[in-house]
């Protein structure tokens, strides 16, 4: 590895989770290795501090030039009728390119997180919702209700940055904020302990019974009285007390992580959450806050929505975009033999590898990815490390620039897709 000058970068945006903390400090040494020197969480460190591997494009497992690999990828796509583009771990500009190519070859699109993201999308499309964004939470929340998740497995710095922040716009004593965890078993609730040591309220139940509990809470908030004295092990009186506190709060925030709600028809439980929020707004203020987010999922959905009208899962087979979150699942299309080539994209994460398939497989992946079984493998540089990019935060309202922190000898996803498109 050639020598580069060492450097320090302040205020770097971290795309490792949906929070997009942009206060991270990164040091680069003379071999281009990066070190997170301030404000890093475990996910952030993993993302920035990966060892640099010298991977090369390959066709059928044999090292080839980039031109050969691109030309083979174009050849595969030229010969397909129903190509599937999946994984899609990228940011806005990468997704712009993916959409352009998909439009040309009539591909079906599925993001690796779509299985859980569409639980939220279906609610927006069915009833809508009332939600807020991180800076509002940081400055206004007085009661945080966390449903079916610990948050921090997904968004490690959520409490540090948005709940236990010292300063707030409206001179609130943030350490007096109330935190309630509802649902789940053995949830790590330590992040919900206030700086003064006040423990959060925890109302546990089995995940499978969360739908009942949330429905009961919505019913109570809506003024219905329940006959049952407990639901899934939670006392009705505890839910009634929670309802009263939500009604008394000036700005409660109710949050969930769709990927933690692995229950049948999770969208109906999310809808019960968002409808109870709307109910609370009849008298006071309350907002929902979907959390989680990774692998550029929100960027992919936003870009796809303005470009085609639809979030993924979508397809371009009939020369216009179509949307179906159920039928266009990559897993299902592959299982049913309804795709005749797979293009897998994961520029952020080498561990997000494609499924095993018996159709031609093109992988455009992180430099450290192992993809020996791919017909074509093209390692690409990573947005936010090797080249600039743009990425959306979990609250969808904020998008941030991703910085270039070092030189890379690898092409970007945008360059690779453009070359494939030119070779069609």
């Amino acid at each position: 590895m050639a020598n580069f000058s060492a450097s320090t970068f302040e205020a770097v945006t971290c795309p490792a989770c949906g929070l997009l903390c942009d206060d991270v400090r990164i040091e680069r040494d003379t071999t281009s290795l990066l070190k997170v020197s301030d404000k890093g969480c475990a996910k952030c460190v993993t993302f920035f501090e990966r060892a640099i591997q010298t991977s090369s494009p390959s066709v059928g497992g044999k090292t080839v030039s980039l031109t050969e690999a691109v030309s083979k990828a174009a050849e595969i796509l030229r010969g397909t009728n129903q190509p599937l583009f999946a994984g899609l771990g990228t940011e806005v500009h990468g997704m712009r390119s993916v959409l352009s190519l998909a439009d040309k070859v009539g591909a079906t699109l599925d993001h690796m997180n779509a299985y859980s993201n569409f639980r939220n999308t279906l609610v927006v499309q069915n009833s809508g919702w009332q939600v807020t964004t991180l800076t509002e939470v940081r400055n206004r929340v007085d009661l945080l209700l966390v449903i079916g998740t610990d948050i921090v497995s997904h968004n490690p710095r959520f409490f540090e940055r948005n709940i236990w922040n010292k300063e707030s716009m409206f001179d609130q004593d943030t350490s007096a904020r109330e935190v309630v965890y509802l649902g789940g078993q053995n949830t790590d609730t330590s992040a919900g302990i206030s700086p003064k040591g006040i423990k959060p309220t925890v109302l546990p139940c089995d995940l499978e019974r969360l739908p009942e509990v949330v429905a009961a809470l919505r019913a109570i908030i809506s003024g219905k009285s329940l006959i049952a004295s407990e639901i899934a092990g939670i006392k009705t009186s505890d839910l009634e007390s929670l309802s009263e506190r939500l009604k008394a709060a000036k700005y409660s925030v109710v949050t969930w992580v769709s990927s933690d709600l692995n229950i049948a028809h999770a969208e109906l439980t999310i809808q019960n959450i968002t409808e109870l929020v709307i109910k609370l707004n009849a008298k006071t203020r309350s907002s929902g806050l979907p959390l989680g987010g990774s692998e550029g999922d929100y960027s992919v959905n936003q870009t796809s929505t303005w470009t085609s009208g639809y979030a993924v899962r979508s397809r371009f087979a009939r020369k216009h975009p179509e949307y179906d979150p159920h039928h266009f699942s990559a897993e299902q299309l592959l299982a049913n033999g309804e795709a005749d080539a797979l293009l897998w994209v994961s520029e952020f994460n080498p561990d997000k590898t494609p499924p095993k398939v018996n159709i031609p497989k093109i992988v455009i992946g992180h430099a450290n990815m192992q993809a020996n079984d791919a017909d074509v493998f093209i390692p690409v540089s990573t947005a936010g490390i090797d080249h600039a990019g743009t990425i959306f935060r979990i609250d969808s309202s904020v998008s941030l620039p991703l910085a270039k922190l070092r030189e890379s000898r690898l092409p970007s996803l945008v360059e690779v897709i453009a070359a494939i498109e030119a070779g069609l």
Partner: protein
Amino acid sequence: MLIKLSGGKVYDPAHQVDGKVMDIYIRDGRIVSRPRDDETIDQTFNLSGKVVMAGAIDMHTHIGGGKVNIARMMLPEDHRADPSQHSALCRSGCGHAAPSTFTTGYRYAEMGYTAAFEPALSPVNARQSHLEMGDTPIIDKGGYAMIGSDDYFLRMLAAKKDQNAINDYVAWIMHASQAIGIKVVNPGGISAFKFNQRALDLDEQNSHYQVTPREVLKALSRAVHELGVPHPLHVHGNNLGVPGNMETTLKTMGASEGYPLHLTHIQFHSYGTEGDRKFSSGAAQIAEAINKNKHISADVGQILFNQTVTASGDNMHQFANSTLGSPRKSVIMDIECDSGCGVVPFKYKDQNFVNALQWAIGLEIFLLTDDPWRVFLTTDHPNGAPFTSYPHLIKLLMDKTFRNDMFAKLNLDAQAMSTLTSLDREYSLYDIAIMTRAGAAKLVGLHDRGHLGIGAGADITVYTDNPDREKMFEKPDYVFKDGELVVKDGQVVKVTWGHTHTVKPEFDRGIEKDIKKYFDSYHTMNMENFKVSSEEIAEGGRGGVVVQACEGRREKSL
């Protein structure tokens, strides 16, 4: 490349040209004077008998940003009915109420529009607005930065900061968000809603900051004026959609104490409380006040009957309206202590009393206001109707018989409450060219657009003079964008990237020290990341940023 547009009937109100037969020459994207006789003309278009105007400019249309994308995501059922096919030239997409970006660009161009302005660019969401507009081909675009409920500004007002400091902040916002204007939505009200206030009248205080909408309007209209920004403060008033709100609107006209104001989608703010249903037309009083107050301009925000979606920064009123939506769903958001949004699908019906009267009120305002340089043709896309219905609206304005035929189909109670059929006025082609070209360019501050003078950008639309004005305006013969033929017979023949128009008023950059401290204390984003760079906008070979001239500081306050 020298192009001659030969012998068309030209309507160019910026130069008082009203249907004169003349030749126009284009070189390198600009309109040039008649070449010397020895110069070779590369291409001639014989436009004998055709109508020639500058490319049309939509000065208020929601085409890019968070709430538009929420509207898109929310309405797969609306998109399914209007798919747009991939072709050799054009990307696929979808149309109707909240069209995809590529389709938006093509359809505007195919209608003879060459520029469109997003009026509610939330500074914290500016990057997204520009990304979406960046994927909107052919047409030029730009945005008005929406402030007035942002915590930083309301703090300044509450602390009685001097006007110069407010001017510096407003200028800083315009630079950071790459805007060409400043908009205020429900002044102070989006913030008030976060403190659980459900209404905020012009002289009512925001409960936290103890600041009234009147104070917001005065400070911002003065800032915009003193900074030399050509576009006056763009105002979405306090009581959108509320019966009786015409009183607020009339008072709002005086709130700026003479500083220019543009009152947007004024139809939604022109309601009285007369009649059995306590809902009546305030068009006559509103139009009279516009005619009298020369510092006021307005766009109408006409409603037309069909399915659409309303998308606004006004989360306070959109929350109140959310139960009226059809289909019944809504997204209401508080955003970053900066702004908010509310998206509610709506179906306007001609047999619904309120909707029918709204339709009549919009047209009454068009017909009762005297000066087409101060009244603009909008549907507040998509709030009143999708922009694709403009040709229909133009026909309603130009053809009294057609208008009265449509009126006769309305809800009878609404008919009884409207004076529309007594209004004989028919807009002329010259009037339409003012409203949609010369006047709009002047209002937005596009010095080289909206007219056909020497040096102007060669954005030109050519129509066949058809007495059916809807047919005429929905399918131009030719559209030139920066001198390139982009549309022929109503079809895109070439796809280009338009420019992003901005202004960059001068200001004291010292203010950034305090803003940085504020971001570090309270925000979840770094101040530097709040700023959208010109490089981001020009990414991937897209049309870059054009900086339109500011007139320079006017009467700097001491």
